[in-house]
């Protein structure tokens, strides 16, 4: 028997750590979604779909810019010393994943911007002549377009990985001590992005292709979850206690019902029927995937703070 009583009761620290509220899960979700969108958008660029489609390659970079800005605003809201946020960009701390992330986010903006120049949508044409000239220049040198596609895919992978690495670098939080967390967040981001494009695209080919891709991502996510849980269950007692917060602890109902059930299994089943033409495509499956991805971030961030070495 061990009973530990301490006289400390610091706000947000005691009795259980809860320093990150809704802002960080929302930021991680939007970051993962943007990462997935960049990978899909980059892939479409490499497939020359900007020559054919009316939707994806035209608007995805703009949507990603808006979502990324929303995520960064959520991150800004979380800062306790807001007027000093610019300090992030006065240094590069190579041991800090948060510093890496700050600079990656800064590089992503120009990468998305040059992606928008590949095909400027009709309503935006002629508004800024410089952009039109740059767009024309790109089409004179197709190798530049290919490089933009590759750049978006590479940065998308980096951003998706970063959202997981950020948490797994905190050794003091046993639930996050998993080398699978980056893979989990990257695959979840890809799945959410595929669901998002599936939800809003008007192109039949894209919808069908992304529904199939999302099925693959959701299946892969189940395997990554298996690795994540097995890795922690076969580790030390603190890690077993940590993962049991999800398996049969206070976060189990949300984890099993909303993340695994409604977030992965149900949409996977619906989309398997849809791609096999048993039922029509509906908005239900992609909406469930998006909500499941958001809930996953909330559960991992909250339960991770709950987990402790003590």
């Amino acid at each position, binding site marked *: 028997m061990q009973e*530990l*009583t301490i006289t400390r009761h610091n706000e947000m620290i005691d009795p259980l750590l809860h320093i990150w509220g809704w802002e960080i899960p929302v930021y991680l979700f939007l970051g993962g979604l943007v990462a997935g969108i960049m990978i899909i958008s980059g892939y479409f660029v490499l497939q020359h779909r900007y020559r054919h489609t009316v939707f994806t390659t035209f608007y995805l970079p703009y949507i990603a810019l808006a979502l990324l800005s929303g995520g960064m605003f959520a991150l800004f809201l979380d800062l*306790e*010393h807001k007027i*000093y946020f610019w300090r992030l960009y006065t240094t590069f701390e190579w041991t800090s994943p948060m510093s890496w992330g700050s600079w990656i986010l800064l590089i992503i903006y120009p990468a998305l911007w040059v992606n928008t120049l590949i095909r400027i949508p009709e309503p935006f044409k002629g508004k800024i002549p410089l952009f039109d000239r740059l767009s024309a220049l790109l089409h004179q040198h197709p190798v530049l377009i290919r490089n933009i596609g590759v750049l978006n895919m590479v940065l998308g992978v980096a951003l998706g990985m970063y959202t997981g690495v950020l948490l797994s670098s905190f050794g003091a939080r046993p639930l996050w001590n998993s080398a699978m967390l980056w893979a989990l967040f990257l695959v979840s981001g890809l799945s959410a992005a595929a669901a998002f494009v599936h939800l809003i695209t008007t192109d039949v080919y894209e919808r069908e292709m992304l529904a199939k891709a999302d099925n693959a991502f959701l299946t892969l996510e189940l395997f990554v979850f298996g690795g994540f849980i097995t890795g922690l269950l076969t580790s030390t007692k603190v890690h077993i206690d940590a993962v049991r917060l999800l398996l049969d602890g206070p976060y189990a109902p949300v984890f099993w019902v909303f993340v695994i059930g409604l977030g992965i299994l149900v949409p996977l089943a619906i989309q398997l029927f849809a791609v096999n033409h048993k039922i029509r495509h509906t908005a239900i499956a992609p909406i469930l995937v998006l909500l499941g991805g958001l809930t996953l971030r909330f559960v991992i961030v909250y339960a991770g703070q709950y987990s402790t070495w003590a």
Partner: protein
Amino acid sequence: MSRYGMVIDTVRCVGCMDCVVACKTENNVPEGFNRDWIAYDVQGEFPTLQMEIRSERCNHCDAPPCVYCCPTGASHVHDVGGVVLVDYDKCIGCKACVASCPYGARFINPEGYAEKCTFCIHRVEEGLDPACVSVCPTHCMHFGDLDDPNSEVSTLLASRRHHTLMPEAGTKPRIFYLT
């Protein structure tokens, strides 16, 4: 180069909280927050119970995760004694350091920056002991250079059984508890 650390004799500590009050007064710690605290650790099965009373604070770790994760360099290892400090003007209040500390030693000051024990570096640089050490009525707390084999802390560690908190976390704490 010195490497400051603290040795606390749990046999002598009575949990009077003088160290806690001294710290709050010396460092003007905001109301409702503590940089140091008392832990009452009871172990065993009745009736063979053992209680260890400890004065706890930031462990000024040799492998400080709070410094490694800080995105702005606000959390840093000070030139004097390797003390882990926070530069308040660089801190953005991201709370990464709070999440990274297995000891829960940090908190967010109401003004928005991360705060914790400084080993009273302002006193130490004037040749004084940290406030908590200087007021301890049972003289259970000792402060000094761990790299100096003739210092009081080094001789105590060489002659007495001791432990650190959560060594398994891999942070190499520099506060030692004599048992």
